[in-house]
């Protein structure tokens, strides 16, 4: 997953590291010229007695020069490398605002700060990148915690454009929640697309999940209202409400979604799109959020997306967390989005 972005980040990280290394070894740098690097050590000199006077001895002066000397990275030292990192992120379809945020964060960490020369350059760079990516990725969204801390049934409405795998995602989340010990009912709210009711019906049957269906062409609000009623009367933990795919520009379909929201009063509105759509997915999520609102996002087909742009940018751009990513065809191929894990995967050496 995101293999292309990972490879590019490695290249950008090396470039950034080289720039800083150049500062360390350059004659006339803020350190002591071409002196070799010495690991940082906090140990006291063995010759120095604990009751030694505070005034620095010659040994201490040398120690300060060679061990405790500091390096100050200036903006010009890393300007080229940061520019390369910026292009790397943009080429991976990371949205401009998210890219700017990452660059600003890395710059803030690296530039002007006093660093011990013995500190590993690579860990310095990786640390800066890790912090910047984590800031942009946000905290994710723990659905299990949400369900545990909210009155039942927790009603989740799935929205999004056509053909992104919304119905399959509803089934996958149903399966995931069942495995976590929650009871689930699915509302077949896509009464518009031919075969959609059958499709979700097959999934539900295969997973052993109760489904509420009305005939094709019926009012989706009515189906989902019935689903909520069923869940309430049968003490079901979670309602998963599927809806027909639609573009935010279709006013009539958006007002239908508005009606669904009024009728079923969802606790969470989840926007579903595909990771392979890259920046388009980010723009669509933004528009959907503006029009109908969204509390979290799910990206499907992340296994086919080598760039990772949408996954990196979406939370920062629309201000809503990424909740799950779909990673394949089977019911188990869905994973909660864990920012720390994703960052480790992107910056790890394996």
């Amino acid at each position: 997953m995101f293999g292309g972005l990972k490879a590019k980040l490695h290249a950008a990280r090396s470039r950034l590291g080289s720039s800083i290394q150049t500062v360390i070894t350059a004659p006339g740098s803020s350190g002591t010229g071409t002196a070799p690097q010495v690991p940082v050590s906090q140990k006291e000199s063995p010759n120095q007695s604990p009751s030694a006077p505070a005034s620095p001895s010659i040994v201490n002066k040398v120690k300060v020069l060679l061990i405790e000397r500091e390096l100050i990275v200036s903006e010009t030292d890393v300007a080229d490398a940061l520019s390369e990192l910026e292009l790397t992120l943009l080429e991976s379809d990371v949205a401009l605002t998210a890219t700017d945020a990452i660059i600003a964060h890395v710059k803030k960490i690296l530039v002007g700060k006093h660093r011990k020369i013995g500190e590993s350059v690579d860990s310095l760079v990786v640390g800066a990148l890790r912090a910047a990516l984590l800031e942009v990725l946000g905290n994710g969204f723990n659905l299990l915690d949400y369900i545990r801390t909210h009155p039942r049934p927790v009603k989740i409405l799935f929205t999004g454009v056509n053909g992104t795998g919304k119905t399959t995602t509803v089934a996958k989340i149903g399966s995931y929640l069942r495995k976590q010990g929650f009871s689930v009912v699915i509302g077949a709210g896509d009464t518009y697309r031919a075969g959609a009711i059958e499709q979700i019906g097959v999934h539900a049957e295969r997973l052993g999940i109760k489904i509420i269906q009305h005939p094709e062409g019926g009012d989706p609000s009515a189906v989902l209202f019935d689903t909520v009623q069923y869940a309430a009367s049968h003490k079901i933990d979670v309602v998963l409400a599927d809806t027909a795919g639609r573009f935010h520009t279709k006013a009539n379909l958006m007002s239908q979604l508005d009606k669904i929201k009024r009728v079923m009063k969802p606790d969470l509105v989840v926007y579903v799109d595909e990771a392979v759509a890259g920046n388009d997915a980010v723009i669509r999520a933004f528009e959907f959020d503006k029009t109908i609102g969204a509390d979290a996002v799910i990206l499907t087909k992340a296994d086919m997306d080598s760039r990772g742009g949408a996954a990196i940018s979406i939370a920062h751009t629309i201000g809503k967390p990424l909740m799950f990513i779909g990673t394949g065809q089977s019911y188990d191929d869905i994973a909660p989005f864990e920012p720390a894990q994703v960052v480790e995967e992107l910056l790890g050496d394996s």
Partner: protein
Amino acid sequence: MADTMQPIDQRELMTLQHYLKEYGQQAEIFVSQLEMLENGRMEALAAIEALEGMMATEDGVVLLQIGGGASVRAKVLEPDKVMLAIGAEVVVERPNKDAIGFLKERIMEMEASQKKVAETLDRLRSQMNEINKRLEAGYQQSMAAGEE
């Protein structure tokens, strides 16, 4: 032989038909993704050819398509400066050679994606074949039961 045959469950046949239909719909989506990737790849190849051709001409004159099958001769003022959409709706100016390098990288990325989509499609098709076989066997059993 007929004695050992299990009675066919019509509901199972219907479920299998639903599976087949669903897999068919998924396969259609992957086929259209493959087409999009192939179109993108061909477009990038054509752009590389045009960029290389532009540098090879001495006067910088090219045929510019203006739609409807019509073209005009146009002179490229700066053939070494290429405006390139690099992603995230950002356009940058790159030297011709760098732009070609970028497009070649994009082609490699698209080929890698094509491979992944094709693998998924193959898996889906083999699952569809399995379902088809089971359906066929089910129909034959039904017909045999009807003849008796």
